[in-house]
């Protein structure tokens, strides 16, 4: 285990703290860098950081404890986190993880005795089309198999720095199999901004309104309404108005790239290959609402994109598309800063994301007030999904009527669908809204043998083969973009259990119904999975689901029971086949739970058994 002397820590911290300055909203970014260098956050570093920002120590500890990529204990020089999504699991993740653990003599979830390596699971890393995937010190590994793990074990044993590992291990493919207006028709950088400036801000808002663009993060709120609320919002502070319409432009544009919903990876592809389009949309938004500052909240799992995104921003600044006096317009300045997340699904919720941007724990706020009036640092803030901004750029360029002509009445435009699971060609498919699930299944090579599809990730809907004619649209099946396909004979209960584990892990812990409810749900699912379930457990699951849905503070809790309730309703036989016929059965193996104590004491008498 590494030991850090106080002077070491101080030496490591000084340049980091100097670079980030004294604004406490930089706290999370500082902690990420410290974690990188030290492989954990030493207690003494917490003292120094708290003193630097002038915040109580407990605030810093609270942030460290909240994000799963930060830790107060050393996690090993090489920290390997296997993506735990059901699609990775179906591709053999559990067996591969055990294989690597055996090779490196380390227990899952623990650090090897020499402090060299730790291997554990993490929530979906957004590589479902090229799994099983993992992260090594934050860098994505894809298409893992035994050969690759042999190589990785060798590289770790020889202590080769991750930066020097062969590039093929880190290859991330876009896998775009169907492009439409977003992916298929390239745009000239700056075209949307030029069109916006030529047309005027108010007129561009009118075009966005006419396009009927709705948020692509899943909720489907009308983008034009969000932008006009933000534009009209008046923020007050200490009695004085600090920004008003046409006054000081203290408004913010935030791009939500915390793509945490398991099975979703479209934002990764947009940011990898269409970053200009996304930044363009943000800039158009800034012109419309009157913002001078924007943030891209990039999930920690996509940190490998940071460098190239910074390069895109730099190129755009040099081209006069960002920064002061954009395209020579003296009253238009806007710049974008990239802010990294650190492994917390809840930060995809817009108010939690804002808290995280401010350097705090990602706890969802009470709403109202909504971010459009009271967002980042209390200022009017627009938070939109990556894909929404890409669409907005296209609308600014080509007009609202053009966009509104695509898709259905309530869902205009196209939708990027991230397809994974039991299909021949997993990847990104762009369709006009209104496409049927069966059409997508045909195109991606599922060949009619599919049994169930999880639409929009664990928090979405499970649909059975009887419902494959349903349409992807806000009118029928709203989605943030994930489509996970399960073939016949797949154990859907295992999928529901995987999702229950996911929610229990990702609950932020703020409200009791969610914190306790997701944990109880996980426990009952695990009880059923290990063959101790009875009929009364199903009733308990339904009761719990009702509490989660109705009593939770935010969307995480209220959707946490969806996959469990869906499988109970649509695939009851999948669950019932696992139940015991007894009225009651203990939740664990009584005799087995005594085995350790038998070994320790060397006893094997009658009383040492149950």
């Amino acid at each position: 285990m590494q030991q850090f002397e106080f002077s070491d820590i101080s030496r490591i911290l000084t340049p980091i703290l100097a670079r980030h300055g004294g604004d406490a909203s930089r706290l999370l970014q500082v902690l990420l860098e410290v974690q990188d260098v030290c492989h954990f956050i030493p207690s003494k570093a917490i003292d120094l950081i708290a003193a630097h920002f002038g915040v109580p120590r407990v605030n810093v500890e609270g942030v460290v404890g909240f994000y799963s990529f930060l830790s107060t204990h050393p996690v090993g020089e090489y920290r390997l986190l296997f993506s735990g999504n059901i699609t990775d699991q179906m591709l053999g993740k559990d067996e591969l993880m055990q294989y690597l653990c055996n090779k490196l003599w380390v227990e899952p979830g623990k650090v090897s005795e020499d402090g060299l390596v730790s291997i554990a699971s993490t929530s979906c890393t957004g590589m479902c089309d090229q799994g099983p995937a993992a992260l090594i010190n934050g860098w994505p590994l894809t298409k893992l198999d035994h050969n690759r793990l042999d190589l990785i074990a060798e590289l770790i044993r020889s202590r080769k720095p991750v930066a020097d590992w062969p590039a093929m291990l880190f290859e991330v493919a876009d896998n775009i199999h169907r492009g439409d207006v977003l992916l298929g028709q390239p745009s000239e950088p700056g075209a949307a901004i030029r069109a916006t400036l030529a047309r005027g801000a108010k007129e561009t808002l009118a075009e966005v309104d006419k396009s009927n663009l709705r948020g692509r993060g899943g909720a489907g709120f009308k983008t034009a309404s969000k932008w006009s609320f933000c534009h009209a919002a008046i923020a007050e502070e200490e009695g004085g108005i600090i920004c008003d319409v046409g006054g000081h432009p203290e408004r913010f544009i935030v791009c939500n790239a915390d793509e945490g919903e398991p099975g979703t990876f479209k934002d990764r592809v947009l940011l990898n290959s269409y970053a200009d389009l996304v930044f363009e949309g943000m800039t158009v938004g800034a012109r419309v609402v009157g913002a001078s500052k924007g943030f891209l909240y990039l999930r920690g799992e996509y940190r490998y994109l940071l460098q190239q995104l910074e390069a895109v921003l730099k190129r755009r600044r040099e081209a006069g598309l960002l920064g002061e006096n954009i395209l020579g317009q003296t009253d238009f300045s806007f710049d974008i800063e990239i802010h990294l997340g650190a492994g917390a699904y809840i930060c995809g919720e817009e108010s939690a994301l804002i808290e995280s941007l401010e350097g705090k724990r990602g706890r969802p706020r009470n709403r109202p007030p909504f971010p459009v009036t009271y967002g980042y640092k209390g200022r009017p803030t627009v938070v939109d999904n990556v894909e929404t901004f890409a669409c907005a750029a296209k609308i600014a360029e080509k007009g609202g009527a053009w966009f509104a002509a695509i898709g259905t009445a309530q869902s205009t435009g196209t939708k990027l669908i991230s397809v994974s699971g039991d299909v021949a060609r997993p990847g990104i498919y762009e369709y006009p809204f209104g496409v049927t699930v069966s059409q997508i299944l045909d195109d991606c090579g599922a060949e009619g043998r599919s049994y169930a599809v999880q639409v929009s990730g664990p928090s979405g809907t499970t649909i059975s083969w009887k419902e494959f004619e349903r349409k992807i649209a806000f009118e029928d099946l709203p989605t943030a973009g994930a489509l996970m396909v399960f073939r016949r004979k797949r154990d859907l209960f295992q999928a529901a259990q995987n999702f229950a584990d996911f929610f229990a892990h990702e609950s932020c812990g703020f409200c009791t119904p969610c914190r306790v409810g997701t944990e109880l749900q996980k426990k009952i699912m695990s009880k059923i999975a290990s063959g101790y379930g009875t009929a009364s457990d199903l009733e308990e699951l339904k009761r719990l689901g009702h509490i989660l849905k109705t009593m939770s503070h935010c969307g995480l809790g209220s959707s946490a029971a969806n996959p469990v309730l869906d499988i109970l309703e649509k695939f009851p036989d999948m669950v019932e086949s696992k139940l015991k016929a007894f009225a009651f059965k203990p939740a664990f193996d009584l005799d087995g739970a005594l085995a350790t104590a038998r070994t320790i004491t060397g006893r094997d008498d009658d009383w040492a058994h149950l």
Partner: protein
Amino acid sequence: MSENSDRSPLPNPLPQAGEGAAVSPACDALKKTRIATCSLAGCFGCHMSFLDIDERLFGLIELVEFDRSPLTDIKHCGPCDIGLVEGGVCNAENVHVLKEFRKNCKVLVAIGACAINGGVPAMRNNIDLWDCFQEVYCYEGGLECGQIPNDPELPLPFDKVHPIYEVVKVDYFLPGCPPSGDAIWNFLTDLLSGREPKLDYEMLHFD
């Protein structure tokens, strides 16, 4: 104090509680309800709280009689109407006692935080059992010669402490650490008079 804590005599007792239950010969025409209580991995705090019903015990004893309980020192539970179990399940003996209660009691009640969730004893659940034994018996302040006791008379501990509902079916949960005397009184009088036990908010918050 809320109206629930009034100390009036009991409402009408159970009409005919516990058919088939062993009834003491001292009990005349009206069969008394038979109650057993025990503490597993608990601190007897819930039992102390039970005694906090104070003089209402006199009213209660008109209606009930005690089977196994610290009040009687009976060692094994016989057929009963109500079983009150304090504490979680931390060792093999706890399971034997708990199963005996479940077998004999028509209504089984988990009383207090430890029975319901594992409570304070379950704080050892994050510590490896080997580490527990070594710390207690092998390191400083342990037994002579650093032996780990292996007498069959000693109950063998589980890897983890479990709430009782994971081992037997539980009919009612009476939360609190401990539940107040008033809460226990309300709960029992509801049960004895054939009402579905219901605790108001005042009985359930502890701040």
